[in-house]
């Protein structure tokens, strides 16, 4: 509340003022006492009841009193509180007492406060108090472990939390759903275990061999059975020539005519060739296979030929990793002898 008390030092005031009122402009010693002398330069000589509210009062009360000082209840009253040389006055506004105490130190009862608050302000304060004491928030807490405001777990966003230790918490619904998909190991019979480095069926007295499998065979019998033979695709082709080719002569492995095979599918092959021939000399005849014109030296076979005798020479040799387009031929080294080539045949075999 603003300071409105004005202490007036009375040196020569002798007239008897009306009870409760003082005329501070008496002149009894011939010396006009000015308002300055009394420190009340702003006082006017009007009756108190008709006096205006002083600007300081208005300013101090920040306008609260504008509507309060009307009527008799809220009138401004100046009271004498000391007599003699130190006689002083107190200006009273309504029921409140303006003193020299600073606003910060002023004691204001709630009843007094209500007198000076507008309805809107009281409503605002009331709403604030409602917020403070409401159930949605607790702005006041105690650190003594109590819960004076009845704060709930939902208030702090933990409505789903339960006060259970981690060890005693139940599994989640998702975890249980996943567990329901697992087999109970105690209910599994004949489970597979590592038995000294090899897989062994528990409770099965038989042991799997290198060529065994465990399961049900074609007759419905469970147990170890012999692995079926891997099925493979067998391929066979033949090249035949009945056209004689006389006086074939070479000193190095050389393709003989009309006995060539071109690979049509990738894979490993076995080639067999038999050539009927007639040598004009007694001597050794070498026979080879060649891949794409290159002699496969390890495929050599030799035959001791009898002069001018129809005889045959044959050879069998496997060639792996052939691809489409490779060309396989049969080669002779007659070592300078003239050899008549008669019927000749090459068989081609492959398994994939």
């Amino acid at each position, binding site marked *: 509340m603003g300071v409105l008390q004005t202490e007036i030092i009375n040196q020569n005031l002798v007239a008897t003022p009306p009870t409760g009122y003082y005329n501070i402009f008496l002149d009894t010693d011939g010396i006009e006492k000015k308002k300055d002398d009394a420190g009340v330069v702003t006082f006017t000589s009007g009756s108190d009841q008709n006096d205006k509210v002083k600007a300081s009062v208005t300013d101090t009360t920040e306008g609260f009193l504008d509507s309060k000082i009307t009527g008799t209840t809220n009138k401004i009253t100046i009271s004498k509180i000391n007599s003699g040389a130190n006689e002083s006055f107190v200006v009273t506004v309504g029921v409140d007492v303006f003193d020299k105490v600073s606003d910060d130190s002023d004691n204001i009862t709630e009843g007094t406060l209500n007198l000076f608050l507008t309805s809107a302000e009281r409503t605002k304060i009331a709403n604030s108090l409602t917020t403070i004491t409401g159930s949605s928030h607790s702005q006041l807490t105690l650190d003594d472990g109590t819960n004076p405001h009845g704060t709930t777990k939902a208030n702090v966003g933990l409505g789903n939390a339960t006060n259970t230790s981690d060890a005693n918490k139940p599994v989640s619904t998702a975890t249980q759903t996943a567990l329901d998909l697992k087999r109970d190991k105690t209910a599994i019979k004949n489970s597979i275990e590592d038995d000294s480095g090899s897989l062994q069926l528990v409770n099965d007295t038989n042991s799997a061999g290198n060529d065994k499998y465990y399961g049900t065979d074609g007759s419905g019998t469970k147990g170890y059975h012999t692995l079926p033979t891997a099925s493979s695709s067998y391929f*066979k082709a033949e090249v035949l020539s009945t056209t004689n080719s006389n006086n074939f002569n070479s000193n190095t492995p050389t393709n003989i005519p009309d006995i060539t095979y071109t690979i049509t599918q990738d894979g490993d092959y*076995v080639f067999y060739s038999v050539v009927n021939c007639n040598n004009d000399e007694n001597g050794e005849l070498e026979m080879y296979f060649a891949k794409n014109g290159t002699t496969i030296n390890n495929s050599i076979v030799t035959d*001791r030929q*009898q002069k001018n005798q129809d005889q045959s020479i*044959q050879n*069998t040799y*496997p060639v792996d990793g052939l691809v489409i387009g490779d060309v396989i031929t049969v080669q002779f080294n007659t070592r300078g002898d003239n050899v008549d080539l008669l019927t000749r045949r090459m068989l081609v*075999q492959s398994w994939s």
Partner: protein
Amino acid sequence: MVVDCLKCINSACCSLVIEVDKLEFELLKEKGLSDCFIKHVDVFVDKFPKLKDKKEQLEENYSDNYAEMKKSKDGLCVNLDRKTMLCSIYEDRPKVCKDYENNRCSKIRKLCIN
């Protein structure tokens, strides 16, 4: 020149390669002579073991020259009696032996001697 086999001194013909087809092999087998032969397919799969399980199909290649008469270390037929230098299975000898004409002996002897 005709050579009297009984007077043969080196049995040159018995050093030649004697081959039989599968049919003849089966006939000789019935006479207990299969051990005198070695099958070409067996020689092949011994050399290439990975093809052992393909033996049945590989055997098709050797229909005409299915098996070969075994020879001893001296290069002569295992059925040649070394004391008499006569054939020990003469009555059951392979057809190629029966068909052999001893008028070729001069050539064989020369071949063998060479």
